[in-house]
């Protein structure tokens, strides 16, 4: 690295050049000031919201029961948002993700109730429905070149009709299968929750440590040891706190029914988060998704199958949305023609954007959707505890989304000036 002469002194110091806590902090501040804010605004917003609601409603908001409830409430929105990240990364939009989830859940309801198939086949039917819808949207967008806004707006309207036809006006399909209801109702045994939590921390710390030492041996840029320790330590603290809190007894009447352990829905979210993040950051396909979103023409000239990437992103997004729809249905124990309708999609897009995914494409991570989804869940949950009307909840959520979009726009302008995108 002797060749690294600084001929462009205005460029901020990069993390690997930093040493000591001060250096790491300075590098991070420089990165944020340069417009690369990442999920910072969402995390700060989350902290502020949690503090405000904890002060205003100390008994209810911070209770163990409400904490677990919050996770189950936000699960479906978060899952749909995780899928949407892929479409948003392309600079496209999917307005139909919510009703795609609803339609997939309705198909699943029919397969499970009318055709009496077991839960596994039903879930596969659900995801397959999502994939088919995604393929149809993707083909229209990638092959015919119709703007995704129009295609998915049409799908949004059309699929609501499909749901009405499947379920019938005013009807519902009840979900009774315990395995499927467990997705949003049940908790893991306490020991299993702890095992997963520790595996997560050890896995992250171990893999990043190995990677750093391998890169150091190869003479490549690597994360300073201190930064690694800070990151791993932070993950450890957060994971232990969350798991500890969720492992406490939270039932109002424990003798009647014991409620403790990590909710299954959290495990579903974490699993999807790991798989989707892996796809996006470790495979050539994921790299090509970023390239298509950043500069489609450059990607085409580099020999990337741009249409194929677009199609696959829509298929993936809709398949994940189907899982989201399944969780919506599991939570309400039934599918109705309004499942996945109303504000579901808007909340999901809001979650991804609040978390730091850019609507302009090329920038965003799957974890953004999880952070943003939590922000939205905390708002609606906390507002509900304050006995605010639905109107106030919508207004506040809208304002938060607006703030997030403004942060994106401002950081984009700063990034254009300092070149960090």
């Amino acid at each position, binding site marked *: 690295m002797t060749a690294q002469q600084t*001929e462009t002194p205005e460029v901020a110091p*990069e993390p690997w050049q930093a040493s000591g806590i001060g250096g790491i902090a300075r590098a991070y501040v420089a990165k944020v000031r340069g417009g690369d804010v990442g999920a910072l605004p969402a995390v700060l917003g989350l902290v502020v919201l949690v503090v405000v609601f904890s002060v205003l409603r100390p008994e209810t908001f911070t209770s163990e029961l409400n904490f677990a409830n919050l996770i189950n409430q936000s699960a479906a929105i978060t899952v749909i948002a995780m899928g949407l990240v892929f479409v948003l990364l392309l600079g496209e939009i999917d307005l139909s993700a919510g009703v795609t989830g609803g339609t997939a859940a309705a198909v699943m309801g029919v397969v499970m109730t009318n055709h009496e198939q077991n839960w596994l086949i039903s879930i596969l039917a659900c995801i397959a429905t999502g994939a088919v819808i995604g393929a149809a949207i993707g083909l229209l967008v990638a092959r015919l070149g119709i703007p995704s806004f129009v295609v998915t707006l049409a799908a949004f309207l059309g699929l609501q009709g499909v749901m009405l036809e499947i379920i019938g006006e005013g009807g519902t399909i009840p979900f009774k299968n315990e395995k499927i209801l467990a997705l949003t109702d049940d908790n893991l045994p306490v020991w299993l929750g702890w095992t997963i939590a520790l595996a997560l921390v050890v896995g992250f710390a171990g893999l990043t440590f190995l990677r750093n030492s391998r890169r150091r041996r190869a003479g490549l*840029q690597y994360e300073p040891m201190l930064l690694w320790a800070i990151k791993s330590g932070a993950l450890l603290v957060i994971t232990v706190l969350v798991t500890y809190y969720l492992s406490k007894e939270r039932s109002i009447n424990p003798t009647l029914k014991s409620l403790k352990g990590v909710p299954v829905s959290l495990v579903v979210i974490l699993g999807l988060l790991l798989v989707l993040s892996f796809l996006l950051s470790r*495979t050539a396909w994921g*790299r090509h998704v970023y390239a298509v979103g950043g500069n489609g023409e450059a*990607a085409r000239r580099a020999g990337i199958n741009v249409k194929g990437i677009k199609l696959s992103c829509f298929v993936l997004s809709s398949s994940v949305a189907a899982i989201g729809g399944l969780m919506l249905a599991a939570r309400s124990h039934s599918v109705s023609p309004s499942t996945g309708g109303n504000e579901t999609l808007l909340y999901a897009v809001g979650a991804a954007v609040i978390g730091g995914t850019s609507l302009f494409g090329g920038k965003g991570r799957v974890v953004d959707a999880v952070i943003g989804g939590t922000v939205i869940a905390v708002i609606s949950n906390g507002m509900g505890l304050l006995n605010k009307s639905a109107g106030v909840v919508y207004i506040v959520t809208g304002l938060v989304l607006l703030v997030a979009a403004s942060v994106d726009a401002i950081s984009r302008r700063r990034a254009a000036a300092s070149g960090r995108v």
Partner: protein
Amino acid sequence: MTATALERSAVPGSSEPLLQLRGIQKSFGAVHVLRGVDLDVKAGEVTALVGDNGAGKSTLIKGIAGIHGFDEGEYRFDGRRVTVHGPKDAGALGIEVVYQDLALCDNLDVVHNMFLGRELRRSGLLDEDAMEQRARETLDGLSVRTLQSVRTKVAALSGGQRQTVAIARSVLWNSRVVILDEPTAALGVAQTEQVLLLVRRLADSGLGVILISHNLNDVFRVADEIAVLYLGQMVAQIRKADTTQSQVVQLITAGRVGDEGAFA
């Protein structure tokens, strides 16, 4: 950098051209764009391709790069007659084009851009370490000192640095001929200097370089040979030492030198 691949290339200025075009014809509908064009590109030399707007420069390089085929004529590479049906064929021969608008992804870093579409993989996954190492080696091989870090996002780079990345990408894959389309068009004085040095270094390391430029000062600084297109015809391909700027200007604007018909 792939030093071995470069060293086995021909001695600079040797007689046998690496790339040879003879009697190239190309029409778009009724428009006859290239009319019997000849071109020689020797390994280890910079061949400047000059001509006024509409002379057929872009059509010629797009044909060489396989973006559209020639209608007629002989395309010889390394002494063998070849047919190039698409960019993939040209890439397989070792012909790389650096387009004027560079085609880089701003949201990706230098390494990602250099390997875009041709990522190195290990057991199916991206091999970031190997890619970073090779990117570093290639840049060092070209004596590039202007990049602070290969993990910088391309959006953070200056025009000259972007050009450097685009050129470095073109030599990453054992390329034999690099075609540069107006590499200094949008650059300031200092950055133009850097890029011209880099162009010269490419040729010195044994590659055949085709440089398209409107700036005759640049052409006379780095080129060994100058090929002049005039209304779809190659009116001259001459050694730089045997000509002057004013002669080249006359060739570009009138297709001939002095009052005496075609040159040479």
